């Protein structure tokens, strides 16, 4: 397990050394989202009964930032290592592929949770947000980080250039997070789009996470937990399969 700890340590130190870019920058951009959307829509929208829009928005934004940063951590680290060639130091070592998987996913989780909880803590002084079921919120935060950390590994392995990774992020991750109910309750959508939203796994992450705060959600948190767990299992199996086969890593 020493190899796993070393890789985890390396991955955490790596993003921490560029903390302005990896932690503070997403905090700032998320706060700007919050400022703009709460001012523009704050008086017009009530997503859940009795819940002010700005309070509704904060868990969604925190989860969105958490997901995007968890993805960015593993994917950017892997592609940088591949392009600069220093991935060989890991590939030459006896660290096993499950250890590699766990280390990258946990480092992504640490960054994701750090950014997500940072947003929550900064907004605490200005906005009254209940945290009715903290365990539910924590479970969905962790599961979301695990899933996006694992998807980040897949993207980092698959992409051969930075623009391929940017495409993955801009055409897959960004639309899935933006259209998952970060800014709205899906009950405010027409029936067709409600159905489409149910096909988006990120919707279950954000809805379940929000349940932890308000005790209210668009669908049952147990169902969300089931969907998210299945997604995690599927993504983990794919990622472990890629790492085991050495796809695009070992010739």
């Amino acid at each position: 397990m020493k190899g796993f700890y070393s890789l985890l340590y390396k991955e955490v130190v790596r993003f921490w050394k560029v903390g302005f870019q990896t932690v503070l920058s997403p905090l700032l951009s998320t706060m700007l989202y919050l400022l703009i959307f709460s001012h523009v829509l704050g008086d017009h929208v009530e997503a859940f009964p009795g819940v002010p829009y700005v309070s509704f928005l904060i868990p969604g934004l925190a989860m969105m930032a958490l997901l995007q940063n968890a993805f960015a951590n593993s994917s950017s680290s892997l592609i940088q290592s591949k392009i600069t060639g220093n991935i060989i130091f890991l590939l030459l070592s006896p660290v096993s592929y499950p250890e590699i998987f766990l280390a990258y996913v946990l480092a992504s989780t640490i960054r994701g949770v750090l950014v997500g909880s940072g947003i929550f803590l900064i907004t605490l002084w200005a906005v009254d947000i209940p945290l009715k079921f903290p365990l539910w919120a924590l479970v969905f935060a962790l599961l979301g980080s695990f899933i996006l950390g694992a998807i980040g590994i897949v993207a980092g392995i698959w992409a051969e250039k930075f623009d391929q990774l940017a495409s993955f992020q801009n055409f897959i991750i960004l639309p899935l997070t933006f259209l998952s109910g970060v800014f709205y309750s899906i009950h405010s959508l027409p029936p067709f789009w409600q159905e489409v939203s149910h096909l988006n796994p990120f919707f279950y992450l954000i809805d379940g996470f929000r349940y932890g705060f308000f005790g209210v959600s668009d669908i049952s948190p147990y169902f969300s937990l089931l969907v998210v767990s299945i997604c995690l299992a599927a993504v983990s199996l794919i990622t472990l399969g890629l790492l085991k086969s050495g796809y695009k890593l070992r010739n």
Partner: protein
Amino acid sequence: MNPAIAIRQASKQFGSLRAVDCVDLEIAQGEFFALLGPNGAGKTTLINLLSGLSRPDSGRLAIMGFDVSREYRKARRSVGVVPQELVFDPFFTVREVLEVQSGYFGISDNAAWIDEILARLDLSSKADTNMRALSGGMKRRVLVAQALVHKPPVIILDEPTAGVDVELRQALWEFIKSLNASGHTIVLTTHYLEEAEALCNRIAMLKAGKIVALDTTSNLLKSCKVRHVKLQISPDSLPDALLPGFIGKESGYHVLKLDEFAELESMLETIRASGARITDMVLPHPDLEAVFVEIMRKQ
């Protein structure tokens, strides 16, 4: 005792290129071994197969008796590889890089050995410098240090002295020689054939993915049929009978081709018969470069 490296019928194909073609090779523990060949001969591919960076299409490879596929963890713990490319992690200092690398190999407290490697490679003053700030030569030293953090019994160096200055080259070989003297098996690839000749006890030559020569360094040198003799004569005019073997003039010497030593006697007789006098004669030993060129031409 298990061989340090055992390769049986290993092959690797990239598209239409057969980079390694049914290679059989065994390197005993404690050897200082050279893997030579022109660019594209398959040296680096063979090293990649041994280190796990590539997977063979067929055949088996083992390091210290551990199969590189089935027992990859034990095999990788037994080998340290200095890669040919100058790669580095720009986020970390030299010491951090070596600590992380030690951790990958399951070593918790490696400070004493890291300090020793840094000192031996003249890197102590750069221990806390970020990798980005190092010169090319310094980065090359760190690559060597990284390969040694886990004290592997087998050390593979893929062109470790390419583009490095004389001082580092000498320091590096002194260090590697001392490691070999203490029992480590050394395998190196280099285009500096004089390095291989001076350091290695056995040599394999590769061409187009196949081993075309494999012997001790002294046997390879003895096997060289292309020899020369350098003669200084007075008056400075070569008899016509010797002109077919004349290669050229070099610093006042006539350089003549010598297929066999027995030819030397008749050559001297011909010169004497022409009335000339031999004022100096040099019979240079063939070097590895001559052997290499001859073997590569033959294949």
